[in-house]
């Protein structure tokens, strides 16, 4: 137990007691000590006096050598308890007579006269040697010895007293100290308690009690000041914390909402995906399931027909043929319905490949023959020389053609069905134009309105008379749309009909998207171009001199001109302002003109914008192949440029290419 770590109370009490004890002890000790010294002095004086008296009393006896008388005198000393021995010595130093206290044996007393005079202390005895004389004549020496018992008993008494006194006063000091130490320790202990309470309960409203205006009091003041500062800080913290909590709660609830929305979206998405998948799988399965039994019907009836031919029993041939034709009709119905379902479900894709147009048409002609001859019609096929290659979904093109041709044949009797195929340029793009003309019954204006709608044949009786599903035209129309083309029909009842399909010579996959968007607005909607960009020309050229030149020239010609210094910038601007015409320098840093051209053509928003290549490089074919509307060599012939621009401006009127049903 280290003293330094004792409590203040104990320290204070210890200090007090120690101080008082030490003070008391010092005082008492010195006092008693002084007293005992005096007493000793007194005793020695006393013994000396006694020696004188006895010496005087025994002088006569000594002078007359009366041992008996001397002995009696000495024996009287019995009354004094502290006298241990009294010896009278003759002048020659021999012991004359003695008195020794009862039962005392001390060999040192048996000697001759001790050789000192006066008083001495020896072996805790007080000894006096006194010269005895009678009438001035020495008659001997008296030796007196006392054991100082009075002194010792006094000392003992003092010691006991001291002890008791010390104890008593210590106790009293303890009491007083313990009462008075609270003056110091009380406030401190209270402060300590307050501190504990504050830190345990985090309650900063509490204040420590100030008792006295001393150093501790000031300490308490300081403590209280600190507490109020903490309290302020703490309450500021609390309110900030509360605000934060409130915000967090808000955020949490918002997050929860978002999460919910997200979950809903996700589950909606999953539902949609599931539905889509279900649709696809349904279409695929139905396709298979429906065709398989039909295959059996048609196949077996063909086999029966063959066997009938072999056996020669021709009367049954007609019956079998009827089964066959019903089966085939059913099959084409199923095919049409499945096709339409696929288109409706958005699952009809395009498979693009390049093929020779003339060759494809020639191959198909043979398939038309049966239908032609059925109604005694004549077939005319006119193919232009420059048909070349087409990039499209060949199956769909065939289907469209077959549909148009079979319709023409179906509704014409003893007439002419002609198929014309041409290559044309509209705007800056190349198109294949397929036209099927017939001299048949024609279509009335009323009927023309419903021409491309599903399930509506011109007349309910027509389906009975002419067969067909009523779906063929609708499917052909959709196919043409999917490939970015358009359909027109013209007819005069009684005179005949003309169906024209325009298909891009290079069908691109993203046309499908653009077309779909248009579809939503309805086939007759036209997106008008805002007037501001009617005459904007975008000039892309890295040479500032050229840019300046073009700018001034074109502005003078009445156009609104925007310039760009490189391909990237040009593309960005083009997308933003949708200029009427773009002039494009081929040799540029960064992305060169060909790349810019390719990107323009690849962007559905810009693909139809005429692009004039301005360059020193002679590469017209590459330009045209990529879709450049034309091609001008530097140095720019101003008139040539302006003419070209005018030509393109006029060639492409301000309407989108879509399918109005012209009459």
């Amino acid at each position, binding site marked *: 137990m280290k003293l330094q770590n004792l409590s203040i109370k104990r320290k204070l009490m210890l200090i007090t007691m120690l101080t008082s004890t030490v003070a008391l002890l010092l005082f008492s000790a010195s006092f008693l000590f002084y007293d005992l010294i005096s007493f000793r002095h007194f005793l020695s004086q006393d013994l000396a006096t006694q020696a004188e008296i006895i010496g005087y009393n025994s002088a006569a006896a000594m002078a007359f050598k009366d041992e008996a008388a001397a002995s009696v005198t000495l024996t009287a000393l019995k009354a004094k308890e502290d006298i241990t021995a009294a010896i009278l010595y003759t002048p020659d130093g021999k012991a004359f007579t003695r008195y020794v206290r009862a039962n005392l044996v001390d060999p040192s007393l048996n000697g001759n006269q001790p050789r000192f005079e006066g008083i001495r202390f020896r072996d805790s005895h007080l000894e006096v040697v006194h010269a005895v004389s009678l009438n001035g004549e020495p008659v001997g020496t008296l030796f007196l010895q006392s054991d100082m018992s009075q002194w010792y008993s006094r000392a003992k008494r003092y010691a006991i007293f001291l002890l008791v006194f010390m104890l008593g006063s210590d106790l009293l000091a303890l009491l007083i100290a313990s009462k008075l130490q609270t003056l110091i320790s009380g406030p401190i202990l209270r402060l300590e308690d307050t501190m504990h309470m504050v830190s345990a309960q985090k309650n900063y409203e509490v204040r420590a009690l100030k008792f006295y205006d001393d150093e501790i009091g000031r300490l308490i003041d300081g403590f209280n000041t600190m507490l109020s500062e903490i309290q302020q800080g703490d309450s500021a913290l609390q309110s900030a914390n509360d605000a934060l909590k409130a915000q967090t709660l808000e955020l949490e609830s918002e997050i929860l909402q978002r999460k919910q929305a997200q979950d809903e979206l996700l589950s909606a998405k999953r539902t949609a995906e599931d539905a889509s998948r279900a649709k696809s799988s349904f279409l695929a399965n139905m*396709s298979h399931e429906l065709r*398989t039994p039909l295959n059996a019907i048609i196949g077996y009836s063909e086999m029966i027909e063959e066997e009938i031919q072999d056996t020669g029993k021709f009367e049954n041939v007609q019956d079998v043929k009827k089964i066959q034709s019903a089966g085939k009709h059913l099959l084409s119905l199923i095919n049409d319905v499945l096709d339409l379902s696929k288109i409706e479900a958005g699952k009809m894709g395009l498979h693009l490949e390049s093929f020779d147009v003339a060759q494809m048409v020639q191959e198909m002609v043979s398939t038309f023959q049966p239908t032609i001859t059925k109604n005694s019609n004549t077939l005319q096929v006119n193919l232009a020389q420059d048909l070349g290659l087409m990039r499209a979904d060949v199956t769909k093109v065939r289907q469209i053609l077959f549909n148009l041709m079979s319709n023409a044949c179906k509704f014409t009797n003893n007439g002419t069905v002609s198929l014309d195929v041409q290559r044309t340029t509209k705007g800056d793009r190349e198109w294949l134009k397929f036209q099927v003309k017939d001299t048949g019954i024609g279509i009335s204006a009323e009927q023309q309105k419903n021409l491309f709608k599903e399930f509506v044949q011109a007349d309910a009786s027509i389906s009975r008379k002419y067969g067909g599903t009523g779906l063929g035209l609708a499917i052909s129309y959709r196919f043409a749309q999917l490939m970015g083309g358009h359909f027109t029909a013209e007819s005069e009842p009684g005179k005949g009909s003309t169906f024209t399909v325009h298909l891009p010579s290079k069908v691109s996959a993203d046309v499908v998207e653009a077309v779909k968007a248009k579809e939503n607005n309805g086939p007759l909607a036209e997106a008008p171009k805002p007037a501001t960009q009617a005459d904007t020309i975008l000039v892309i050229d890295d040479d500032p001199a050229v840019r300046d030149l073009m700018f001034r020239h074109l502005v003078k010609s009445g156009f609104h001109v925007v310039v760009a210094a490189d391909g990237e910038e040009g593309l960005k601007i083009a997308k933003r302002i949708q200029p009427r015409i773009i002039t494009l320098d081929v040799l540029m840093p960064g992305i060169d003109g060909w790349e810019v051209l390719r990107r323009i053509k690849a962007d559905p928003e810009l693909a139809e914008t005429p692009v004039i290549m301005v360059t020193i490089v002679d590469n017209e074919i590459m330009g045209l192949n990529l879709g450049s509307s034309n091609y001008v060599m530097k140095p720019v012939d101003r008139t040539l440029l302006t003419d070209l621009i005018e030509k393109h401006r006029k060639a492409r009127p301000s309407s989108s290419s879509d399918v109005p049903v012209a009459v």
Partner: protein
Amino acid sequence: MSTILLVEDNEMNRDMLTRRLQKKGFNVLVATDGVQGHTFACAAIPDLILMDISLPEMNGWEVTRLLKSNQATRHIPIIALTAHALASDREKAFEAGCDDYDTKPLDFVRLMGKIETLLVVKKT
């Protein structure tokens, strides 16, 4: 007399084709699933294989690939028969190694044309 292996799981299709081919003078072997088709092809080494695509056990593409990667059977011409008419099916057929492809419902005359072409090519 040439031997044709017909791998087709649909009973009616199998029946029709077998009879019509036999009438045309072919010796016809039949297998009813992909695994059987593969086994028979390896065992009998037919002159031509008509492979339906949607087969149980192993589909037609797989069987075709196996046969075309086997030294012993690589030379056998295979015509894929499929109910789907997607262009992607055509691509798949040629990718798997088919020599030709026809769609169901089968036009028997058209199919015969393809068979005869391939058998002639094979002979030369």
